[in-house]
């Protein structure tokens, strides 16, 4: 038998998602998830299925480790040496891992670090939702290829994540980093009891949407960071933010601009700057939120934001005007 396979979506998005009504009420909807391959014949019947373990923590851990290992490829170092560390060098076809969201944000952070690193003091970095600390690996390759210096000679890294599994992996994968400049903390992402300006920089790639108290967490990050918070954050243009559930069965909050304005007030100086906006309809991870229809999806998107009081930024960005 020769199989001719063509991709399909077994559950296309309708205009109004099946869980949107439930999210506006106190309804309790019990959900079950399954990771599987599914094959459907011409009559629309399920012809075959192959199930995989359904545990997002395991899948996520492996995916982050894979990314970290690819960052450590000596060919990537050579690529940056040859092409420089810039937006164009992230688009190289031989390194598809670079043409994704998080390297773009790592590049912003790297450029900011390069701008201020002439001062003699070490820079303190908070990685909010650090997973296996793969961001420090890409920063390390960027730094080493440009200056010849290891990142841990410039930055004191502090990773924070809720998952002990991810933190154990992070610890193992960075066992060669000096303990004095590489620390990890297990905590929920809105449980941030840091002193004001405890860090020079903070990086948060989509994590702020997944914590228990998103607006409170954002305020804490802004207060705890003296120079710049670099983040990917999902925002709706609706008047109010709303909660949804993502495909990993985690609660996910879509911020409103009013939420961002409220958070910005927690810091006496500084403003949000937009580096990039990706509408959800153009996202590389389509249909991330469960049960949301196409109409609501069109109101959402991911902003690459930098909150800072720095007067000059080493990249193009427009100030986000908040009412």
């Amino acid at each position, binding site marked *: *038998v*020769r*199989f*001719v*396979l*063509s*991709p*399909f*979506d*077994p*559950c296309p998005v309708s205009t109004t*998602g*099946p*869980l949107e009504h439930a999210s506006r009420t106190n309804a309790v909807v*019990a*959900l*079950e*998830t*399954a*990771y*599987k*391959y*599914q*094959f*459907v*014949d*011409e009559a629309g019947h399920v*012809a*075959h*299925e*192959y199930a*995989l*373990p*359904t*545990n997002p923590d*395991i*899948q*996520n*851990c*492996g*995916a982050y*480790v*894979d*990314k970290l*290992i*690819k960052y*450590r*490829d000596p060919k990537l170092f050579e690529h940056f040496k040859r092409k420089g560390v810039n937006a164009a060098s992230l688009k190289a076809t031989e390194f598809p891992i670079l043409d994704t969201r998080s390297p773009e944000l790592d590049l912003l952070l790297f450029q900011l670090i390069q701008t201020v690193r002439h001062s003699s003091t070490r820079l303190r970095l908070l990685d909010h939702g650090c997973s296996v600390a793969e961001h420090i690996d890409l920063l390390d390759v960027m730094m080493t290829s440009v200056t010849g210096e290891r990142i841990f000679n410039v930055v004191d890294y502090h990773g924070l994540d809720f998952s002990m*599994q991810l933190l*154990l*992996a992070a610890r*193992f*994968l960075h066992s060669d980093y000096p303990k004095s400049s590489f620390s990890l903390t297990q905590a929920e992402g809105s449980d941030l009891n840091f002193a004001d300006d405890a860090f020079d920089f903070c990086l948060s790639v989509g994590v702020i949407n997944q914590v228990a108290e998103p607006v409170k967490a954002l305020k804490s990050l802004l207060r705890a960071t003296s120079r710049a918070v670099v983040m990917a954050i999902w925002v709706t243009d609706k008047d109010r933010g709303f909660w949804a559930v993502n*495909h*990993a069965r985690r609660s996910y909050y879509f911020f409103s601009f009013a939420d961002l304005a409220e958070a910005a007030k927690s810091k006496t100086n500084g403003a949000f700057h937009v580096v990039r906006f990706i509408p959800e309809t153009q996202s590389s*991870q*389509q*249909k991330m939120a*469960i*049960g949301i229809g196409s109409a609501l999806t069109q109101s959402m998107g991911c902003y690459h934001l930098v909150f800072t009081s720095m007067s000059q930024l080493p990249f193009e960005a427009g100030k986000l005007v908040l009412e």
Partner: protein
Amino acid sequence: MMTKRSTPLSWCVGTFVYQRGSSTPLHFTPLKPFLLESALDLSLVLGLKACADAGLSLNDVSIDLANWMSRLRIEDVGRLIREILEADDSISSVIEIYSGCGILAEYLRYVQVLHKEPRSNFVAVDSPDFELHFSTFHGAAVFCHDTDLASLNQRAAIAVLNHNTSVRRSQMPSLHWSDALNFIKSPAIVSMRVALDSAGTSKTSVHGCTVSLPVDADVRSFLMAENPNWQFCLYPDDDSSLFLPSDGETGWLLGASVGRPFSFQSLDAVRRR
């Protein structure tokens, strides 16, 4: 003359979300390849590493990872390796063909640390695509490109042909199983996905790969010609849904030989299962 039937199928892989009790999905999120089997493999290596370092059983820490390891048949192969190492102290190394990111290497470390057994040396043989991943986890072990297999010396080593894991990949390995079979000499272990007869040798995996399976009887007779002391256990293929439905049954063949008459207790255990 036999002609191939052409069967069109629509295909997807990802997260299906159901309202509890319903079989109609509420939602589907496609998953990228890096969130599928390769992610499970990498997590399994790290899980074994963490368990070895903490002195914990993987079953107690993560039932999902333990189940995934069972699906890969790693423990069955590992038990045979330990049995051979125990029986012959002149053997100090393991050569694994189709090592991938090194799950078997990590499993051996895990059981040897937990049981305070001497550590064996490990040589991994696979496509260069796995070298970086393997080396990240097993810095001290040797990684040999599959194109250099013929130059490897099997002296004082158990050769392990882990064909069962190679058929699971989204791209078929460049090293054909018949070339790998030609390489191995007793002491050796084979863990192979086989067709029970010639009707079932060509399969399509859920990854869309055409997989050419060896016939059970052919593998046995080939290995018995290498050494008449090979012993085998054919196990029903409880992972047969890895392949799209087509003619011919498949099975999992576990075989071992130390080159002399030997009673493998761990092979008997698989037979009794």
